[in-house]
Each structure stands twice: as structure tokens, then as C-alpha cells.
């Protein structure tokens, strides 16, 4: 072999070496995440086992949560978690999509960045700030203005009168849902805006070319094209709403009861844990709180997996 060939071989070997080192490092990082996730799942399960084995499947469908008699059931927190998240999504999705449509289709160019950034800044506010604001500013407003008005408005209407029954405490399921709506709004609007940007200009221009209005282009072209991506954004927002702890803890009232009224205090899984873990004494009590955590872990995992799947499918579609 000639001298240059030997030198080149050495260089190639060195490259191969750095490549495999890089490969190993990145793989180790990925494995670390899996190990952490697995570790969390295993320790949650082990921590929850005393409660799960003691109460059995009844744990999931029992409403009573009585630390004095050590009888625990997860139904009220599961209900509260699902209802507050549903309220948040119901409110945040139309507003979020509205923001995205405005920013991508209608907004004058100089305003795009300021408005987009303002929405994304909402995501940067720590949840404790939302909680304190919710308790000291928003809850009194709900209590003195919104709730008395709504109770008065619907008190004769069957069904709605039960859904909006007093007394107006200010805090409760609806207040939590509204604060969650504000918190998940930036997730939904920024993802929706990004997927709206993936709509090929040709499609939109053709629609405009045959005389469609902006509404028709949005309704018939943009939204159908990006439907799955929007769903992915909604799911991510939902995942966030399900797990949100601090803001909800301040305004939910932590009552382990299921009430027909949205104005009644309730509790969510994460709020129960945050409220009670610090002072929980006794193995069954702490174990029941960990079991709540396990339930939330499973719910969130399912939601996020669904979101990933949908985003993956949009990716294919946008690439096609």
C-alpha cells in the first residue's frame, strides 16, 4: 500500500470511530429517557399497589374519599379531571383555531409577529401565576358578576338550572376549566397555525381563483386539509390540561364530590395529589394518592399516544 492510502485508511477509521461514538452517545440519551419513563411507571405501580390491591377495581368507581376512615375512591378526581379538561378544550379550540386562521389568512403582515408572540407568551407564564391570579382576581369576578348572572338567567330552565346551580363560590369546576382554557390556548393556536402554513399555496389560490370567499377557502380547503394536524394540536392541549396542577389546585376547591353543577367545587387527580400529599400520613392514604398518579399517567399516555399518531399521519400527508 502506498503512503497516502495508509493515511487515508487511518482517517476513515477515525471517522468511523467518531461516528460510532456519536451513535452510542445519542442512543444512550434515548435509552435514558426510556429508562426514566419505565422507572416512573414501575415506581408508580409499586407505590400504588397497596391501595390497588386493598380496594380492587372498586377504587376506580368509588366516590368517597375519607382519610379518617381510610376509605378511598378515585371517581371524583377522575370526573373532575375529565370535565375541567373538556371545558378547557371546548373553549380553547374555537378560539385557538380562530387565532390561527386570522394569523395565517387575514392578519396584516406587520401585526403577525406581535400577535403570534403574544399568544405564545401565554404559554410562558408559570402556572402558579395563573393560580394566584385565578384565586385573587378571576374567582371574585366569577363570584360577584358571572355566576349570579348565570344562575339568575337559567334558574327556570330545566337541565341548565342544575348545571349552573349556586351558591356562587367563585371557585369550582367551571372556573378551573376557564383557566385551563387560557393555559392550553397557546398550544392549540401555535400548532394549528403551523399546520395551516403547510397548506400548499396552489390549493388556496385555485379556490380563490374560482371565486371562493375567505370563509369558503378556510372552511372547504384549509381545515379539511389540516384536520388531522389540528386534532394533534388539540390532543397536546388536552394532555396539558389533564396534568395541570398548580393553577387548578388554587381554584378547584378540592371537594371529593361529584356535583351536577359546574359551579360546585370539585377536584382533579393532580390537584388532589398536590393538596394532600404533603400532609398525608399512613400507608394506605399515600398509596391511594400514588394510585391517582398512576391513573393520570395512564390517561395522559393514551392521549399523547393518540396525538403522536395523528401528527405522524399529517406529516405523511403534508409530505405527499
Amino acid at each position, binding site marked *: 500500500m502506498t503512503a497516502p492510502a495508509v493515511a487515508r485508511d487511518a482517517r476513515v477509521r477515525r471517522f468511523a470511530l467518531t461516528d460510532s461514538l456519536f451513535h452510542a452517545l445519542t442512543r444512550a440519551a434515548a435509552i435514558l429517557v426510556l429508562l426514566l419513563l419505565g422507572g416512573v411507571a414501575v415506581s408508580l405501580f409499586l407505590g400504588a399497589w397497596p391501595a390497588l390491591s386493598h380496594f380492587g377495581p372498586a377504587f376506580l368507581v368509588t366516590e368517597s374519599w375519607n382519610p379518617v376512615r381510610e376509605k378511598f375512591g378515585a371517581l371524583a378526581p377522575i370526573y373532575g379531571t375529565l370535565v375541567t379538561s373538556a371545558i378547557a378544550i371546548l373553549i380553547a379550540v374555537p378560539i385557538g383555531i380562530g387565532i390561527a386562521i386570522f394569523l395565517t389568512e387575514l392578519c396584516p403582515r406587520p401585526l403577525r409577529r406581535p400577535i403570534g408572540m403574544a399568544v405564545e407568551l401565554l404559554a410562558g407564564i408559570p402556572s402558579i401565576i395563573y393560580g394566584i391570579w385565578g384565586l385573587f382576581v378571576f374567582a371574585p369576578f366569577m363570584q360577584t358578576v358571572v355566576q349570579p348572572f348565570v344562575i339568575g338567567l337559567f334558574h327556570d330552565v330545566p337541565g341548565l338550572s342544575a348545571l349552573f346551580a349556586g351558591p356562587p363560590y367563585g371557585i369550582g369546576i367551571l372556573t378551573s376549566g376557564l383557566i385551563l382554557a387560557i393555559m392550553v390556548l397557546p398550544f392549540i393556536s401555535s400548532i394549528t397555525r403551523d399546520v395551516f402554513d403547510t397548506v400548499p399555496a396552489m390549493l388556496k389560490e385555485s379556490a380563490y381563483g374560482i371565486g371562493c370567499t375567505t370563509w369558503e377557502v378556510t372552511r372547504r380547503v384549509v381545515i379539511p386539509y389540516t384536520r388531522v394536524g389540528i386534532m394533534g394540536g388539540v390532543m397536546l392541549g388536552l394532555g396539558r390540561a389533564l396534568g395541570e396542577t398548580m393553577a387548578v389546585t388554587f381554584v378547584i376547591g378540592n371537594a*371529593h364530590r361529584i356535583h351536577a353543577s359546574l359551579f360546585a367545587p370539585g377536584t382533579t387527580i393532580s390537584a388532589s395529589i398536590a*393538596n*394532600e400529599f404533603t*400532609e398525608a400520613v399512613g400507608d394506605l392514604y399515600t398509596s391511594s394518592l400514588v394510585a391517582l398518579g398512576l391513573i393520570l399517567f395512564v390517561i395522559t399516555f393514551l392521549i399523547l399516544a393518540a396525538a403522536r399518531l395523528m401528527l405522524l399521519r399529517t406529516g405523511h400527508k403534508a409530505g405527499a
Partner: protein
Amino acid sequence: MMTFIRPTALAAAAAVALSIATAAAGNAADISGAGSTFIYPVFAKWADTYKKETGIGLNYQSIGSGGGIKQVIAKTVTFGATDKPLSDEDLGKNGLVQFPMVMGGIVPIVNVEGIKPGELVLDGKTLAEIYLGDITSWDDDAIKALNPGLNLPSLAIAVVHRSDGSGTTFNFTDYLSKVSADWKDKVGSDTAVEWPVGVGAKGSEGVANMVMQTAGGIGYDEYAYAAQNNLSYARMENAAGKIVEPSLETFGAAAANADWQGATNFHVIITNQPGDNSWPIAASTWVLIHKAPEDAVAAGDALKFFDWAYKNGKDAAKGLDYVSIPDNVVGLIEATWSDIKADGKPVYTVGQ
């Protein structure tokens, strides 16, 4: 490929070990504790003065009583602090001893228009019936009978309780259990209970805020918090049938009249205590420490700090609206310290 990872991992492990060792050396002299948030302001104030006098600091994490108990059992801290005393069985099982460190009062706070702080009088039975949902209006006969001079409105009572687990709730519900058989049967006492009525608010500030916002509201808070925020409190009728104002004197009377001598492990909850001058809802915080500590020096330092606090910390506690432990009780507590031994020798001798 593993060969490439190993040196890096080793280096990282070595770096971590080194930093831990350095950190440990830096804080070696500090006393470590964790637990009750109720006692935290007092500990912080004491620790500040103690550090100036002796150079030994206190590293106290106010993570809540439950966390404090877990950490002291796991021996990650030298002592724990709890608002709910452990049972003799739990103490024995985990090799711990407990003694009270500081006391305070719990006061009912109300928001009824036209009624000034301290004007309203309540007794235990009425308070229990309000929290059970049996009394629902401020002009109920039971409340009227206690307040003949007051013009009580026909206003719904909005019950507010703590939403988070709390030593305040434990002492409040303990009092209700002592004065009402109905409460004891239906609800009981713990750091969190299954409330029959009302709305939960997080923390002392949450309860105060909720009561102040809601016309006809009633709640309960630590006296220290209520006093510093000028909340509208109610007076109480005590076990002796006398009407008392919440004050450091009446809390102190409750502490002094309690039967500490006859209790094992200082397991006395100072609610509904006898004595004309005793405030009925008083609370204490206990310190938990291992009976046979692994680190005798750390345990000795901690006891020395407690000894100093019992003797020199009274004014600081008073300034924060807490009650220090009466001298006769301190004598009883310190007498038990000779049982805290390492290698057969007490870790700290009082008067050293």
C-alpha cells in the same frame, strides 16, 4: 461501543461524587430538619438568631408534616416536625421520640355584614353543627342564643375549609370531634377529612380570601395568620363555659392546663382543655427525632438548638403570634432527652 461510554460515565460519576462530598463538607455543621409548615416561620426566626450566636445554621424544609415524618424515618434529616402527633405504636416501630416545640391557636373567622371582629360568640356544638350543615343561616336560634345583643341577618352560611391537608384542619376537626358526638361519628378528625358541606380553599391565605369574599362566610385559620391580616374572628365559649378572646394568654392557658404529666410521648392535643381562661382550639407542633441516632453529633446539635429555643426563643415566637412551651412542660421534655442515646451515652445533656 461500550468502551467509549465507560470512561465518560466513570468521569461523570466521579464528578458527581466529588461535588456531593464537597457539599456535605460545607454543610456538615448545619442541623437538618423537615416537616410542618405551621412551625416554619418560628424555626426560620430562631435559626437566624442561633446562627449569629453559635455559627450553626438550620436547614429546615417546610414540606408538610407527612413529608417530615417520611424523611425522618428514612433518616435523610436529623429531625422531623409534625402537627399531628404519632401514636405510641408508630413511634416505637420507627424508634422515634416526640416532644412539642411550639404552640398556636386556631380561630374561626367570619364575614357577616355589620358584625365587627370579636363581636360574634360561638361554642363548639354550634360550630360543629355549622360544619355539619345542620345550621345553615346566621339567624339560627342556636347562634342567636349565644349572641343576644347582636342583630343577626337572615343570611346563608357559606362554609369554607382548607382544601389541602393541614395540621390546622387536624386540630380544628379534633376539637369538633371532642365537642360533638355527631361530628365524631360522621366525619372524625384528620389532616384532611370528608367535609359534609362547604368549599375548600388552599392554604391559610386561600381560606381567608374565600371567607372575606363571600357574604355570610365562615372559616378557620391559624391565629398568627388571622392576627397579622386583621381578619374578623369570633370569640369562643370554652370547656369551662366561659367566653374567651383568642390571644397568646388564652392559648398559653390551654397549654398550661393540659395534662402533659399523665400523657405518654407528649401525645396531648390541646383542644377543649379545662380552665376558665383556656382558648378551646389550640394547636401544637411536635419534633420527631431518632431515639438511637446514627449520627450522635448531629442529633446532639439538634437537641442543643431546641434547648436554646425553649430558653431564648420565647420573644421571637411571641413576635410571630405563636406560644412558646410553658416552662413546666419544657422541664418534662428535657428530662426525657436522657433516653436519646448513641453508644449508650446521651447525645446531649441539658445545661452543658
